[in-house]
């Protein structure tokens, strides 16, 4: 690379960093004040893009940018007032879930309004040409973006440090209760901050339309990039977001410029890993302030009673009898339910007793699925062996990713798991030779003796029932107790000789292993694997299942999986906007059953 090429790539990185900064700054601001990780932030960005493309055809590019940003800000305010305001007191995970429902709704809104095709925006009038820099052409518009990033940073900085409102925002970021106690109108503050954050995301989206086409896939890609930026920079720190956006923007530009676009994510991952090991709270972040009030009271967890065990055995017998009555589609659906019950239960193991919420659990599900496919197709292993060994792929992934994740807790951990899942997804998506790239793998069929629907159903029933029994047994083993102790009070656990991190790491790996088993079963039941198997929506589905059933209950995830799988199956058949429908259902559940269905039923019975 010559000197001038390096300079040009550097400038490219700077212009990419600007939009990234706008999104990440908004995310960071919103989290700082409301303590909500806004999953829908990428959707707001996407909305900004679509709106700007649509508006610029009518009122011109320059007028469309501020108008799109303002519209997105207004949309953000509406979301805050109609939805988030009702759930500030709900558990963190329910808040995340609610914002994910918004992701689904916005995606289908965009699909309905602008169709599934990517749409390119116009060039920016007045900045359509190129300038010569060090003997090479460089787009004028990119220069403009380079200037805009720091300008917005400066304006935000002035707003936060020089105005009374900004001081309130910073005070609320440090100590929300105290600001409330001083008589500040929190409602107004929260809405305003959410509006500002949404507006920034919309602005970021609107500004990139001359460079990138608006597409329906951009929302999750942007939000996971923003998560990386925010985690690296430090949650709640605007200068941190700026610094990290520059860092990530440059890494991307140089990887692409050097012709290694495929390793971009790997390099991002390494940078993030190094930062997190050296500074767990990000470059300029600070440890989260402890919340006041009584420590979160975790519900006691009792081993299943004799009657509960009998009921589960009866259920097992009932499921075993089903093929006598039906052999059609019901068996396929029930196989799905079994597989997802195991997937959800494995997630529950780390979320419930472990207290570690994962937003990327599908990574291990997918690693198991791809492991099975690769063993069968590329290494010509027999199906039985492939099924047995595939979970080890997931275990290997969990060993590596988990090592980093257990160093963090709460939302930091959740974001990191999501970033890892996104990395696993893009590896599966890009590594054509092994994973079949975007087409995935086909012909992952079970051995001949398991080829019939009934035979495979029985195999799935046996494997899943055994795995579930083992998982639940684990919860009440000394290891499971040590895990729960580490969640209840890490301080006390360490002080009685429990190596908290090691225990959590082991639990992460157990959860990964069982998710991998579910994934391998899934691959053989479908006969094919696509990158969707380990995409972020799949991870969120797992979360929805667990939360539907209730985190505090042992068997909840199984009921949640059954309900969700059935629901998705009946909604998605023949309905174009099934995502929005599922989003609506999630919202309804979050607002109506903050403790999950099983928790709700149990409460009713207790009354």
């Amino acid at each position, binding site marked *: 690379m010559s000197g001038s090429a390096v300079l040009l790539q550097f400038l490219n990185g700077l212009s990419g960093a600007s939009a990234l900064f706008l999104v990440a700054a908004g995310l960071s601001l919103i989290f700082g004040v409301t303590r909500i990780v806004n999953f829908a932030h990428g959707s707001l960005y996407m909305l900004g893009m679509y709106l700007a493309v649509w508006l610029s055809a009518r009122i011109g590019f320059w007028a469309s940018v501020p108008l799109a940003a303002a519209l997105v800000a207004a949309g953000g305010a509406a979301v805050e007032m109609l939805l988030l305001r009702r759930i500030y007191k709900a558990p963190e995970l329910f808040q995340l879930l609610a914002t994910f429902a918004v992701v689904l709704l916005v995606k289908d809104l965009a699909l309905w309004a602008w169709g599934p095709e990517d749409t390119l925006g116009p060039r920016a009038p007045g900045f359509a040409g190129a300038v010569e820099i060090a003997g090479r052409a460089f787009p004028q518009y990119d220069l403009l973006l380079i200037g805009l990033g720091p300008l917005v940073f400066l304006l935000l900085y002035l707003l936060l440090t020089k105005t009374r409102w900004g001081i309130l925002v910073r005070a609320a970021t440090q100590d929300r209760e105290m600001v409330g106690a001083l008589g500040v109108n929190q409602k107004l503050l929260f809405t305003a901050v959410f509006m500002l954050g949404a507006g920034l995301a919309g602005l970021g989206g609107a500004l990139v339309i001359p460079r990138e086409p608006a597409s329906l896939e951009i929302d999750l890609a942007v939000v996971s990039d923003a998560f990386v930026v925010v985690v690296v920079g430090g949650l709640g720190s605007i200068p941190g977001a700026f610094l990290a956006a520059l860092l990530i923007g440059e890494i991307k530009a140089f990887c692409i410029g050097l012709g290694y676009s495929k390793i971009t994510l790997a390099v991002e991952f390494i940078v993030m890993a190094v930062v997190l090991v050296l500074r767990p709270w990000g470059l300029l972040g600070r440890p989260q302030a402890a919340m006041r009030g009584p420590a979160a*009271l975790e*519900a006691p967890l009792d081993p299943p009673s004799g009657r509960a065990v009998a009921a589960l055995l009866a259920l097992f017998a009932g499921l075993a009898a089903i093929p006598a009555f039906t052999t059609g589609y019901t068996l396929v659906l029930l196989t799905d339910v079994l597989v997802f019950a195991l997937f959800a239960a494995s997630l529950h193991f780390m979320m419930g007793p472990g207290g570690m919420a994962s937003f990327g659990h599908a990574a291990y599900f997918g690693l198991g699925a791809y492991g099975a496919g690769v063993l069968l197709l590329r290494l010509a292993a027999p199906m039985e062996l492939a099924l047995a060994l595939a979970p080890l792929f997931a275990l290997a992934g969990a060993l590596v990713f988990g090592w980093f994740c257990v160093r963090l807790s709460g939302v930091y951990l959740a974001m990191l798991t999501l970033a890892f899942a996104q990395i696993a997804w893009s590896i599966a998506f890009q590594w054509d030779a092994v994973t079949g790239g975007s087409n995935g793998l086909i012909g992952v069929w079970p051995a001949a003796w398991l080829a019939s629907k009934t035979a495979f159903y029985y195999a799935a029933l046996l494997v899943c029932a055994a795995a579930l029994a083992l998982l639940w047994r684990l919860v009440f083993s000394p290891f499971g107790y040590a895990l*729960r102790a580490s969640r*209840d009070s890490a301080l006390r656990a360490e*002080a009685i000789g*429990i*190596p908290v991190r090691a225990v959590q790491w082991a639990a992460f790996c157990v959860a990964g292993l069982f998710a991998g088993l579910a994934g391998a079963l899934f691959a053989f039941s479908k006969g094919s694997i696509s990158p969707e198997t380990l995409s972020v929506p799949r991870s969120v589905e797992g979360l929805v299942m667990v939360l539907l059933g209730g985190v505090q209950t042992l068997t909840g995830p199984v009921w949640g999986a059954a309900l969700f799988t059935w629901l998705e199956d009946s909604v998605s058949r023949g309905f174009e906007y099934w995502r929005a429908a599922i989003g609506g259902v999630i919202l309804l559940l979050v607002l109506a059953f903050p403790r999950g269905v099983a928790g709700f039923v149990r409460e009713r019975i207790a009354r």
Partner: protein
Amino acid sequence: MSVLSVRGLSKAYGGVQAVHNVSFRVEGGEVVAMIGPNGAGKSTCFNMLNGQLAPDAGEIKLGEASLVGLAPHRIWRLGVGRTFQITATFGSMSVRENVQMALLSHHRRLASILSSAPRCCVDEADALLERVGMRSQAGRPCAVLAYGDLKRVELALALAHRPRLLLMDEPTAGMAPGERGELMQLAAVLARDDRLAVLFTEHDMDVVFGYASRVIVLHMGEIIASGTPDEVRADPRVREVYLGDA
């Protein structure tokens, strides 16, 4: 050989010297109180002793073994039990399960994955609870206990590994006066019968002068006096710190 020997222990937060060049020893069978006004450095000192904080300088030895740089769970293995100023127990477990948890750790069975934890060490747990007077509440969830009872559960947890050194950070804060005596009496018996070294911080001077065999006074991160309760009571510097003048 002293059970605990501390030499030249120092810790600064930014520019503030929280603990400066602190040296002392605690022998087996002794009950030593560490006192001082708020901000004197007592908690910082304690947190360095059990590995929660890394000291900037100094030496901490349990018998022959150096504790500096070890994680809290390793320090517990070597024989240091601890209770916290703000009690820390496992809220989702019953009182008995809390103690069972500590006993599982004591018996090195944390990696066991197929045995049933609720059936482990039940008698041993009940015996420990009997000792701290919590046997009758063994089945209750920790989350609903009165504060004084939580302190006793913590003591049972700290004793599960048969420590050589017991660290108690404000063991009687939040307790009724009658309960305070009972708990400290128990600590004194343990020190006498098991040759346990006990180090505790305390604001209640009745407890300090009633149960400590020796008192160390910290002020602004440094030891300004140490000796028998009577010696410390008569020390002019201590009077100055506590009463404002001599």
